[in-house]
């Protein structure tokens, strides 16, 4: 207890202050401004007290501040439970704990609080910089904890000791990470209040909504193909299907039936791939057309879009198969076909007239009407651009016959409208088209600017047929990428542009590192663990064998570390070893050799304490002094020295 109540030195206080600031600073942006400022001023106050040798605030003031802080947090959040309120409360406690640092006990509590707040950072972000920052904070906190027991070493030495301790802990950490039985779910998943503002496709499409996405270079999902990567023009990642049109925007169907499994027959060579989907807060999962299998916990809507049962709030990984040539919906229900034919009562008279003309010419022949529509789009010389002019009420007419400039949503909307007015069922499909292979790790990266809209038309006997009207006017959008298709002077995110090669290269590397982190650290789930262990030769391990392996490997590392520490001891020369034996023997009799004490001085002290053996002690010490510090020690002396010690029985 004497140790625990030893007062805290200034140096220890500085250590703890540094550790607390390192732990609290990254969390400042998560709490309200008043709390961040209050915390900062508490730290500043503490620093001033230490610097000026002033006394700590009185007990009653501390109690008052704790109450005020807790009430403040409660008033802010109306609760003190949950992630952010909890962290806010811990910050209050940390700041005030520093103001009552009195004894070594308080130092340990403060350090533990800092460790806990480091964990708290991971509740908000789990990126690599967060992890590095957390590592740094743990280092400082460990050094502060070391300083709490011994503040004499220089700060650099203290940090080195802390780093050594952490380095020794590292193998255990890795081992536990790899082998400890995993639970399903992300490492730091917090169900509520995440992803309130993530960009991505929405469940409706109006002019400009996808063009807006093209300004973002955030990753939508990453794909790893099991075999060869299909050609760029085949990479249609099916997202929300939008059959409902109100004259302005397209929406997903209000009610959707769902297939528990794929309702159409397979055709063509299947493509196998694994998607790592970034969280987007919606239900849908993106799949290459046409999806041939369903990820677990998902279903296929009646318009063949895989959807998850829960909104995608965490980074999700799933494997899938696609049949590029499958014919879907040959026996489509009349309800769906009706929905795919409905048009608003009025508007766009010119397009309706064109459609009616096709109908009159080709009758029920959907394929012929389709060809006519494609022909029309080809003839009109439409221009693909990110900055289309604003359109009025008859947007389809204005786009097709007047402005002739539009982005993919204009093309898709106009095409579907034209087909419907000719009596051919058609609908808009939103999703992503293309993607880019990261040459560093071979993953296909699909970014927000790859968002796209295309169409499907229902042709009797062939089912739903994909037509991309954008490809008619701007084939390079499909065959290459966005940058190749839009005019050079239009603003695009840096990464979507084809110049700036070095920047792209850098970004590729960064993305590959981030992806590795996502795949192997954050996304290390039971499946990953099983796969990894299987590749190490452990087929289907149960928790018992895992625990056994874990203990064995931990033991091996322990032994290794112990051996490393002992190695220096084993190097000890025989003179020193014999001397240690001798001093240990005297220590048992209450004559403790101080590690800084010279042998002759010690002998005098010991002889004074035990005059009966004084001569023997003096002789052994003199022999030791000669052997260790004298020139050219004789082997005979060493033997005599050892014999004297062996014979020495105090």
């Amino acid at each position, binding site marked *: 207890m004497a140790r625990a109540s030893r007062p805290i030195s200034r*140096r220890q206080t500085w250590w703890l202050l540094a550790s607390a600031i390192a732990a609290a600073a990254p969390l400042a942006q998560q709490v309200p401004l008043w709390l961040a400022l209050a915390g900062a001023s508490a730290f500043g106050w503490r620093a001033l007290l230490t610097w000026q040798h002033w006394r700590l605030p009185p007990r009653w003031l501390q109690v008052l501040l704790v109450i005020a802080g807790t009430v403040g947090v409660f008033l802010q959040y109306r609760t003190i439970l949950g992630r952010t309120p909890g962290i806010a409360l811990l910050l209050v406690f940390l700041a005030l704990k520093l103001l009552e640092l009195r004894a070594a006990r308080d130092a340990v509590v403060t350090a533990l609080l800092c460790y806990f707040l480091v964990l708290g950072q991971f509740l908000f972000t789990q990126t690599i910089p967060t992890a590095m920052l957390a590592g740094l904070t743990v280092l400082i906190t460990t050094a502060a904890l070391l300083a709490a027991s011994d503040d004499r*070493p220089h700060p650099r030495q203290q940090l080195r000791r802390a780093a050594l301790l952490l380095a020794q802990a590292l193998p255990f950490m890795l081992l536990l990470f790899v082998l400890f039985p995993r639970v399903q779910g992300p490492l730091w998943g917090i169900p509520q209040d995440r992803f309130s503002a993530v960009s991505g496709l929405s469940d409706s499409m109006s002019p400009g909504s996808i063009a807006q996405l093209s300004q973002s270079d955030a990753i939508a999902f990453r794909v790893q193909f099991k075999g060869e990567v299909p050609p760029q023009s085949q990479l249609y990642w099916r997202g929300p299907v939008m059959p409902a049109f109100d004259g302005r925007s397209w929406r997903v169907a209000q009610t959707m039936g769902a297939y528990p499994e794929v309702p159409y027959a397979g055709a063509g060579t299947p493509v196998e791939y694994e998607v790592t989907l970034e969280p987007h807060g919606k239900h849908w999962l993106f799949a290459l057309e046409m999806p041939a299998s369903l990820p677990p916990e998902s279903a296929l809507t009646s318009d063949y879009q895989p959807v998850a049962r829960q909104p995608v709030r965490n980074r999700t990984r799933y494997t899938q198969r696609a049949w590029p040539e499958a014919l879907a919906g040959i026996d489509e229900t009349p309800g769906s076909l009706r929905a795919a034919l409905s048009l608003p009562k009025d508007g766009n008279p010119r397009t309706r007239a064109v459609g009616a003309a096709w109908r009159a010419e080709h009758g029920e022949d959907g394929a012929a009407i389709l060809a006519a529509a494609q022909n029309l789009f080809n003839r009109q010389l439409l221009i693909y651009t990110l900055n289309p002019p604003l359109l009025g009420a008859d947007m389809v007419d204005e786009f097709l016959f007047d402005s002739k400039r539009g982005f993919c949503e204009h093309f898709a909307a106009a095409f579907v409208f034209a087909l419907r007015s000719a009596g051919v069922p058609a609908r808009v499909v939103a999703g992503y088209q293309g993607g880019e292979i990261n040459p560093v790790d071979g993953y296909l990266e699909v970014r927000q600017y790859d968002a796209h809209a295309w169409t499907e038309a229902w042709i009797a006997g062939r089912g739903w047929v994909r037509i991309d009207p954008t490809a008619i006017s701007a084939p390079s959008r499909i065959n290459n990428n966005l940058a190749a298709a839009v005019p050079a002077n239009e603003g695009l995110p840096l990464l979507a542009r084809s110049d700036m090669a070095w920047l792209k290269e850098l970004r590729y590397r960064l993305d590959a590192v981030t992806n590795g982190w996502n795949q192997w650290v954050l996304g290390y789930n039971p499946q990953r663990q099983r796969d990894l262990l299987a590749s190490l030769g452990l087929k289907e391990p149960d928790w018992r064998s895992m625990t056994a392996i874990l203990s064995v490997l931990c033991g091996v590392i322990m032994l290794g570390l112990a051996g490393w520490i002992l190695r220096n001891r084993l190097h000890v020369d025989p003179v020193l070893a014999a001397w240690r034996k001798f001093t240990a023997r005297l220590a048992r009799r209450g004559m403790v050799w101080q590690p*800084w004490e*010279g*042998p002759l001085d010690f002998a005098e002290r010991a002889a004074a304490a035990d005059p009966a053996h004084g001569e023997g002690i003096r002789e052994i010490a003199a022999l030791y002094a000669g052997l*260790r*510090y004298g020139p050219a020690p004789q082997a005979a002396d060493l033997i005599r020295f050892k014999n004297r010690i062996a014979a020495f029985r105090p």
Partner: protein
Amino acid sequence: MRYPELDAILADINRIILGKERPVRLSLACILARGHLLIEDLPGVGKTTLAHVLARVLGLDFHRIQFTSDMLPADILGVSIFDRGSGSFHFHPGPIFTQVVLADEINRATPKAQSALLEAMEERQVTAEGETRPLPEPFFVIATQNPTHQIGTFPLPESQLDRFLLKIQLGYPDAAAERELLAGTDRQQMVARLGPRIAPQRLVELQTQVRAVHASPALIEYVQALAAHTRNAPRWQTGLSPRACLALLAVARAWALLDGRDHVLPEDVQAVLPGVIAHRLRPADDTAHTDIDAVAGALIEAVPLP
């Protein structure tokens, strides 16, 4: 192997300087290590007597230079005077041309005069008017200085202090020694009666033997550990320099020789440590009146023997 002449010398000095065995032994060690000695103490504790006695028992010439604030370098080194008879300049050596110099109250002189002495100490030769003259061998300077907080002093800068191998304090004698001093015969007469115990040639021989005293790797490691601790620990402004480490080893060797040993022990290093670090280490919290023995003791206890 004991050196009876050294024991006799110590016995002679201790008969006159009463109750100061340790400083006396340190000053002899300092001569044996071919270093110079700085004594910082109040007036009247026997600094001059110690210098005088050392010179007598070692059979060396002795001069005393009283430093004053109006002193010029020529007052120490000597001047050339025109000799009308021969029609040329003739060099009159200053008081420094002797074997034992007592530089009394060195910190009362101006830095200019101080540096004249200190350069001569370092070079063991004097260059005056374009001519270099070697100083006699052995050459030993005992400088005394009043504690720096006294009025009218020019404290020596650290770089100059480093030229002294050791800095010791005599301090007041204890009650018994003082009683004996007061009751006994006049010290001046006793000094006058002393005869040399050793030939100057033998002293040079002993100085050579000191350099041959063995310092084992373990001991050198210990000296390094001490220095490393002063360099890393926040207690001191600056750590011990390599020159300070050399000084520590040199005095420890002489100390071992005085004990009749041919090798240095950690005890020797520890015994001379206060004198070596007294004027070289400055504590970080610059409290002027730190007890150097306590400081050295803390340093010793912080560094385990390797």
